[in-house]
């Protein structure tokens, strides 16, 4: 049944593509219904799911001569991310309610992207995984290049090329697995049990991790993220930060770490004090956390602040993954979910509620507009989002970052302290942006010069969906942790457990 999340999205996209002249109202209705259907399917399935098992969704022989199957399955991690994708998709439609330029094409691309993301999260065949992964690149490009803002063509191209470069690395890795793995199969479950040689894992792991890491915003390959996020139309930035970056992180987990755990073992020598890929990538992740936050602190463009914050928060995800402990990995997956929701909310406020009304994103120009008074709902939403973003207890981000920090304490105490500093800086930049954009003091006569249009119902609904999600998970993290954590006890992660004893 879960496979229908993919099919429904693609069917919706195809329907919209076939009626490019349809009225905006019908188009929106189709897009909304499609994305809600996807969300409902994922949630229903999550309720029925028995934690710890692997739910086979579809298993059909596809290309027999290469041992490639159409194999869709889900464990707790996939389900968590499916729900995330569903939520962000629904909210994204709400926040795209005002797209008037070629709406059918817009939503067709949008749904294609959503469908591809569902596909990635469900694929348990490496080839299929890669197919969906790459499929997601093109809609992103067009969404940004056609409907974007500041330097959209440049940003879109940069995003596409970075993604493609990353996936090229992954492709090399996948081909190597296929050719040298000994098993003529792409089945992830089978591959997880096959013992690749240490030497092989040592070079395939970094290749694949880096390839996926580019999309996850791994420093210093993150530069596509801020420009891409800033240029993208609201729904696209929500998806980019919300789910597309998660594709990268998910790939790091599902392919790099799960299949090649021995690639994380020590090299046997030290370079700059780093003795393994694990240490190296952890260092990069922490640099990303601190760097992203620090750069966000000095941005003038509101959307860039959020863009860099994504880099910083994704650093937490990667750090959590590299702790290799159940708690850190669980935290990383939870952080993927949490950041997906929160980044969606932040971009919704900045892109839709603020920019579409004020037509500027420069913090110093937003200040005199008294947005807190003119559009109080936007201010309210942003305050909630900001609190969630800085890891206030009670929001989903707190539990996630808590788990990651615990995991990091255990593995690399220094990174935990640095990540703590990163949190501080992120508090500072979030609060600075909040302050400058919404609560800047009155300066002169231009106060309330032009009343801005009020917040529409779809925006309220979209914000409500996201806020409820982050608060619900924040107050009752078990709802997701009970899905996520048992997944790490499944046989799939046996290699990891053996290597880094739990």
């Amino acid at each position, binding site marked *: 049944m879960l496979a229908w999340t993919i099919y429904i999205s693609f069917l919706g996209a195809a329907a919209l593509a076939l009626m490019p002249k349809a009225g905006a109202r019908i188009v929106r209705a189709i897009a909304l219904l499609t994305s809600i259907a996807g969300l409902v399917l994922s949630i229903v399935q999550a309720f029925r799911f028995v934690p710890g098992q692997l739910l086979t969704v579809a298993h059909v022989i596809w290309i027999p001569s290469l041992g490639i199957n159409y194999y869709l399955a889900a464990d707790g991690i996939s389900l968590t991310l499916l729900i995330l994708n569903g939520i962000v998709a629904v909210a994204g439609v709400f926040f795209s309610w005002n797209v008037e330029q070629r709406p059918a094409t817009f939503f067709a691309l949008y749904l294609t992207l959503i469908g591809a993301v569902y596909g990635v999260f469900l694929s348990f065949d490496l080839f299929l995984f890669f197919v969906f992964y790459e499929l997601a690149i093109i809609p992103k490009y067009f969404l940004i290049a056609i409907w974007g803002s500041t330097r959209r063509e440049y940003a879109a191209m940069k995003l596409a090329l970075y993604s493609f470069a990353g996936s*090229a690395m992954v492709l090399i890795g996948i081909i190597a697995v296929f050719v*040298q793995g000994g098993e003529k199969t792409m089945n992830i479950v089978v591959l997880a049990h096959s013992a690749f040689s240490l030497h092989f894992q040592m070079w395939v792991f970094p290749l694949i991790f880096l390839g996926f890491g580019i999309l996850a915003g791994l420093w210093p390959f993150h530069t596509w993220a801020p420009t891409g996020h800033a240029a993208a139309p609201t729904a696209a930035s929500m998806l980019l930060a919300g789910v597309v970056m998660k594709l990268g992180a998910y790939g790091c987990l599902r392919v790099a770490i799960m299949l090649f755990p021995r690639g994380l073992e020590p090299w046997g020598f030290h370079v700059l004090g780093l003795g393994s890929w694990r240490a190296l990538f952890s260092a990069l992740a922490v640099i990303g956390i601190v760097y992203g936050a620090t750069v966000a602190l000095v941005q003038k463009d509101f959307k860039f602040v959020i863009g860099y914050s994504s880099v910083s928060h994704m650093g937490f995800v990667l750090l959590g993954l590299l702790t290799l402990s159940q708690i850190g990995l669980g935290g990383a997956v939870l952080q993927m979910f949490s950041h997906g929701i929160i980044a969606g909310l932040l971009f919704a406020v900045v892109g839709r509620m603020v920019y579409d009304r004020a037509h500027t994103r420069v913090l110093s120009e937003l200040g005199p507009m008294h947005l807190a008074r003119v559009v109080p709902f936007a201010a309210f939403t942003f305050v909630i989002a900001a609190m969630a973003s800085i890891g206030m207890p009670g929001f989903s981000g707190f539990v996630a970052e808590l788990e990651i920090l615990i995991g990091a304490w255990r593995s690399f105490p220094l990174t935990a302290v640095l990540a703590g500093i990163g949190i501080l800086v992120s508090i500072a930049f979030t609060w600075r942006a909040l302050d400058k954009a919404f609560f800047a003091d009155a300066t002169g006569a231009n106060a309330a010069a032009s009343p801005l249009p009020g917040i529409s119902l779809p925006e309220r609904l979209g914000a409500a969906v996201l806020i409820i999600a982050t608060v619900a998970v924040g107050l009752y993290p078990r709802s997701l942790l009970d899905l996520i954590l048992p997944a790490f006890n499944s046989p799939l992660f046996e290699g990891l457990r053996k290597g880094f004893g739990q």
Partner: protein
Amino acid sequence: MNPGTPLELLRLTLPEIVVAFSGLIALTLDLTAMQRRQLAIRWRVGAIVACVGPAVAILLLVMRPEQASLFEGMLVVNSISQLLQIVLAGFTIFAVLLSIPSEFTSHVGEYLGIVLFASAAMMVLVSTQNLLVIFASLELLSLSLYVLTGFDKRSRQSAEAALKYFLFGGMAAAFFLFGISLLYGLSGSIELKEIAGAISAHGLTPMLAVALVMTVTGLGFKVAAAPFHLWAPDAYQGAPTPSAAYIASASKIASFFLFAMVITLGFTAGASHNWHAPVLIGLIAAISMVLGNLAAIVQSSVRRLLAYSAIGHAGYMLLGIVSNNTPGLSSLLYYVITYALATIGAFGVLAAVEKQSIDRLADFAGLSRRSPWLSFCMMIFLLSLAGIPPLAGFFGKFYIFSAAIASDEKWLWLVILAIAMSAVSLYYYLRVLKQIYVKDSSADASRIETTFAMRATVGLIAALVVVLGCFPNLLLGWIDAALRVMPR
């Protein structure tokens, strides 16, 4: 070895004969009965006649699977040659359909006749393992293509392209002839398998090295691999669009199959220690990929861009020959067929757009508004060329790369280079798509009028690209089955 009888020869070459014959009919009909009709009608009638031949040939091939080798490899009919003949006949139909109604010439009969002759030549080319027949059919094909390139008498560009193509082609033919004459001298045979047996006895002699280089040069010219690619950009740009489409697709398939046959059967068959041919080809592949893809980035003409990208693709496809085993050949065939599909489709769209303007990148601005259907198809073609799943080009790349590494780990560097270059290629394909979808059209650009046949053909090709991408096994299963029964 079956000595063969003339009757059997006739029976086995019936598809080729049908195709050639329908070419003659199209020619005669146009020159006699149709001469006074309107050009558009002449195109339509001629095209119908010209399609009948290949269609009948396909029917014959599908209904009568044969397995034979006559006259010491002069005619080798087996499942793989039949597969290729079906494909080539199919591409001929596409090329004919895309050419109506063209305005570049009033010599409809001659044009269609030559297309069909070329088609027949290719069909012979893929079903022989005899160097003499190879050379003869290759020359027939080449001459046809030279003429097709220069068919637009009113265009100086076309004439120039034809002349260049002819000069380079003539030179390459000379190299090839020299190469095979050396081979004959070395082995005393013109049959590929016997040559292989003879030369694998002694290693790499200087004479053999010269023969190898000469042969590869000649073949490299046919497949437009760097550094023998110089004719390609001009020919792609100057030739009338249907001719260019045909040159870029069908002749590519035939040439690559020939290349693979000559190398795998003639030079390296059964002797894995004969590493020299693959290394030489690997080098050519590397040069082609780098040069083709990098040069494509700076092009402002879409046709030249496609030409350089074709050089790059030739580089990838040579990997299939480098692998030098069955999966390699299988992946090569899959790749070249899907590549040819995407290319002929792209040229089809070009033909439609060029009715209004030339092929500068800027002329594509806002095409999505002027012709949504063609734009959508163009996107599929270009993305398939770029290797984006789930389109056919992606699986082709994946398969050919993995086959190369699987054959020998030493090709890892080549595969990495290829993958890196295909990442580069996305950039220039996206540049075209950016014009189509992102840019607004200039004020004077109007809606593009296309015939139903054109839209349907392009749409059919696009559908094929998608279907073969989603279900590669449709083609791959066929190829693998054919290769399995092919005696090696």
